[in-house]
């Protein structure tokens, strides 16, 4: 048995791998199913970005809150939302996590601290300030993490929230998922600063940039920020530089990318491959052990899809319910 | 003298807080020969609609108050005079009439209209009026408050010292009742009397308040000089359960109106203002719980839980029982009781007989309190 040089125990490394693999399989399968025409509306896939969600969420529990983006499946899975109910929601079925009334962009599970994927970019930042405020009043050491992309980082809501979190010393982490593209517009065009850390310090927060495809880099940086927030040290900003394998949405022709860009990324910047290789290299976990997880996850996703396909649709009555608690 | 042949009809003062009223309709035209006590005009206040009766016999000579007009208390609304008084004399009277200044200058009363006192049951709101050898304490019924006595308190205060309180859970008194029961309310009443320094008094109770007064006479006889029970609970098993449940459940005017109308022989007395005041009370924090817990304890399923008729029969203190013949809440058949109690069932009145036939009820109470076998 080799000694473990990593900051996580073997069981945790296996868990991290399982989470990332689940996200990857979920998204790859959606890519296939969407192309068949069975899935209504829009989906925005997180494949390629798994290390960011997973590296951060491993520090969080159910009392911590996250606010996600339109590209929210990865955050949901990493935060512990049930995969079957997510799939059913994406298919618009009554058994979905939102009873079919939210869809891919609005999956939420407040019991797991998941305050929703959000179709409005940047809208999660104020909400997470509220979660941080609530945690302060409760005094339970809870934190809030708000995810937004390189594009959404230019929304007024995000900038206002950074200032608000700083003046009120809120236990929140602002995570910039910088995958280089806001829909089709590159970050080089849309954002004036070269590094989001410059923005953070401009707003009075500490900030760190990491390679978002490196699970351990994300894990370590996030761990420090979350611990500091729990202890009353206030907010931080974490920029994760990463890549998304697919387009902005499924159906995106991706003509704004360079020829061969996706293929190169899959070959050289696949965070899952790099994670697995780095670990098997030390012998802490073998390829065969990882393969077991691969098979289990494949069958989980299979089952989620077939269950979702067979699940009942919402009824006419469901149209009018749950607008209010009471009216 | 000339003055005595000309009798003013003035805006009455109904209740402690009334400062003005609205003339609704004249019931009799100019020229009618009026008997004493005849109903002559309808007036509406911020608490209730009511009828003004002729205070004197004579001919209605002048109608001055206009329908929908609002006039201060004691303003001149009309003139009654003998036929032989000339119009010129009446004109002169009307021209020289001056509405007495509001309240405090002309009343012997000084001090606040309502007061609050801390008692063993919590904060109790009460009114205290008048003076006299005898002390009367007025106790309202379920869902009511001291303004249920608004047609009685000033008349009684002319001859006696009168207290009217809001029971716990009611009016502006504390809304916490503790264990809901007659015993609790009776203890609260005694606690109130302790707090205001009343050793013993003539208790006058209406509806549930009658049962409270009766319970007090049984538990603390030395505090009670006499009993007047008006449309009282405690004397029989029946009670209009639909009324109780309806009163507790109603949260808006539409639901409350048909419920409140059952209290009166003449439902026209139920003005929008009266309903609004009941709603305002029912919305206060703690009232819903107080009322439903009392209803469950005292009147569940349309049956009275406390039957005190035997106790009344065996009582030493003089007792007077008054009922409206058309009471739709507690039947007037509960009124005739064995024993020494005097019974008066008044025609043309419902459960709120002390409002609908106020003059008669006031006379009966005063006679009872000041009766020949009273010790002073």
């Amino acid at each position, binding site marked *: 048995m080799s000694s473990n040089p990593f900051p996580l125990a073997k069981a945790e490394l296996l868990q991290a791998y399982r989470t990332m693999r689940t996200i990857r399989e979920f998204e790859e399968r959606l890519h296939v199913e969407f192309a068949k025409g069975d899935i209504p509306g829009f989906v925005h896939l997180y494949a390629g970005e798994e290390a960011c969600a997973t590296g951060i969420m491993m520090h969080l529990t159910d009392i911590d809150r996250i606010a996600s983006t339109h590209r929210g499946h990865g955050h949901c899975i990493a935060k512990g939302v049930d995969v079957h109910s997510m799939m059913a929601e994406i298919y618009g079925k009554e058994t979905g996590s939102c009873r079919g009334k*939210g869809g891919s962009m609005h999956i939420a599970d407040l019991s797991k601290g998941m305050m929703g994927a959000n179709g409005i970019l940047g809208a999660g930042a104020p*909400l997470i300030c509220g979660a941080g405020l609530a945690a302060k009043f409760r005094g339970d050491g809870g934190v809030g993490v708000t995810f937004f992309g390189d594009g959404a980082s230019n929304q007024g809501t995000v900038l206002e929230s950074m200032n608000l979190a700083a003046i009120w010393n809120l236990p929140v982490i602002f995570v910039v998922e910088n995958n280089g593209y806001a829909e089709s517009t590159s970050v080089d065009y849309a954002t004036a600063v070269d590094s989001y850390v410059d923005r953070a310090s401009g707003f009075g927060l500490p900030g760190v940039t990491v390679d978002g495809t490196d699970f351990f880099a994300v894990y370590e940086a996030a761990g420090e920020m979350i611990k500091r927030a729990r202890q009353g040290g206030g907010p931080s900003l974490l920029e994760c530089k990463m890549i998304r394998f697919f387009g902005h949405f499924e159906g995106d022709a991706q003509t704004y990318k360079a020829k061969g860009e996706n293929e190169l990324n899959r070959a050289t910047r696949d965070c899952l491959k790099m994670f697995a290789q780095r670990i098997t290299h030390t012998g802490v976990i073998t390829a065969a052990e990882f393969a077991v997880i691969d098979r289990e996850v494949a069958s989980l996703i299979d089952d989620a899809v077939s269950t979702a396909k067979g699940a009942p649709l919402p009824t006419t009555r469901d149209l009018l319910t749950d607008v209010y608690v009471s009216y | 003298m000339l003055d005595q042949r000309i009798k003013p009809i003035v805006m009455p003062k109904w209740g402690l807080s009334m400062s003005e009223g609205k003339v609704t309709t004249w019931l009799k035209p100019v020229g009618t020969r009026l008997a004493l006590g005849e109903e002559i005009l309808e007036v509406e206040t911020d608490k209730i609609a009511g009828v003004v009766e002729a205070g004197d016999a004579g001919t209605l000579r002048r109608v001055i108050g206009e329908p929908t007009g609002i006039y201060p208390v004691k303003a001149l609304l009309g003139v009654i005079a003998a036929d032989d008084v000339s119009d010129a004399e009446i004109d002169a009277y009307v021209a020289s009439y001056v509405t007495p200044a509001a309240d405090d200058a002309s009343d012997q009363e000084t001090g606040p209209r309502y007061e609050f006192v801390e008692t063993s049951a919590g904060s109790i709101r009460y009114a205290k009026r008048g003076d006299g050898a005898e002390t009367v304490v007025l106790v309202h019924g379920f869902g009511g408050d001291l303004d249920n006595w608004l047609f009685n308190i000033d008349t009684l205060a002319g001859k006696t010292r009168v207290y009217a309180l809001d029971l716990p859970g009611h009016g502006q008194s504390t809304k916490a009742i503790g264990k809901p029961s007659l015993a609790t309310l009776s203890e609260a009443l005694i606690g109130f009397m302790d707090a205001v320094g009343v050793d013993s008094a003539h208790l006058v109770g209406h509806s549930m308040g009658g049962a409270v007064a009766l319970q007090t006479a049984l538990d603390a006889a030395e505090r009670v000089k006499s009993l007047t029970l008006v449309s009282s609970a405690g004397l029989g098993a029946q009670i209009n359960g639909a009324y109780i449940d309806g009163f507790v459940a109603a949260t808006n005017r539409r639901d409350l109106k048909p419920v409140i109308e059952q209290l009166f022989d003449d439902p026209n007395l139920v003005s929008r203002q009266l309903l609004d005041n009941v709603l305002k009370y029912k919305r206060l924090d703690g009232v819903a719980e107080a009322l439903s817990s009392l209803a469950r304890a005292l009147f569940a399923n349309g049956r009275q839980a406390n039957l005190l008729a035997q106790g009344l029969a065996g009582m030493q203190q003089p007792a007077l029982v008054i009922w409206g013949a058309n009471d739709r809440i507690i039947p007037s058949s509960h009124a005739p009781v064995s024993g020494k109690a005097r019974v008066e069932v008044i025609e043309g009145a419902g459960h709120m007989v002390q409002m609908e036939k106020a003059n008669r009820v006031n006379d009966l109470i005063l006679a009872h309190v000041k009766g020949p076998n009273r010790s002073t």
Partner: protein
Amino acid sequence: MARNISFKQAINEALDLEMRRDPTVIILGEDIVGGAGSPGETDAWGGVLGVTKGLNAKHGGRLLDTPLSESAYIGAAIGAAACGMRPVAELMFLDFMGVCFDQILNQAAKFKYMFGGKAKTPVVIRAMIGAGFRAAAQHSQMLTPIFTHVPGLKVVCPSNAYDAKGLLIQSIRDDDPVIFCEHKNLYALEADVPAESYAIPFGEANVVRDGKDVTIVSYGLTLHRALEAAERLAKSRVEAEVIDLRTLSPIDLDTVIESIEKTGRLVMVDEANPRCSIAADVVATVTQNAFEALKAAPQMVTAPHTPVPFSPVLEDLYIPSADGIAAAVSKITKTALAA
């Protein structure tokens, strides 16, 4: 005996009582305490018109002055509500909705439905509305129709101090997002208000004057103009029934229809601009549901289709007047008005 307090004091009392009762109630807003970080007094303002003055001394730590960042702090209030608190956020003037509307429209209003019933957002957003203060176009709008339009929001608009206290207490206790509209021109208006706590249910209009000839419906400041009009009409022997809607969402049209079945005539008065106004909404719904009871075409008396003007002579023309209301009644009752 009346305990007369002003509309403004009634709101202060409601906030105080609920903060005492429930530790999860917090207040956020710009200058709601005042003087934050400044060298002079704290509680320097207690709100731009003093509505929250004195609360900081009683509940310090639960009143948070915010920076000029409506998106952020209104959103934070909404987020905190979704996490179990009962925040009362002040959007100083409802006219400022433009800078934070997404958080209200697409977040707070949608959570319960979008998340399949599994969310609860008990936030109250208090804001000043209305004209007559000479505050000009960007600080005088009603905008009540815009919020009423959105499913998932509740909209409350009291016309007097008694209703203001009871409806604000109800708003704080309510589990849905509530937009609580305070007409700035009513702040000084006094009424008899109990010292105790009480809650007025939503969706219950109040008949404030009985009448048999016409039903006049309004809310907020123009409710009082309707009452003035009713007094003038009484001199011409036209008796108007006047109804105060109190809450616009949920709205109580049953009471309006019950009245129309008696009078047959409706005049709806709304200080909002006419297109897609509350007046249009009420008239259309009543006409559809109670057509047979109507003896004449329902009338809408609203502000004009303009921004709110500054010059007092113009602003006074902008707000529906008692004379304008009486004229509308005169038209459909076909009575000439006494001078």
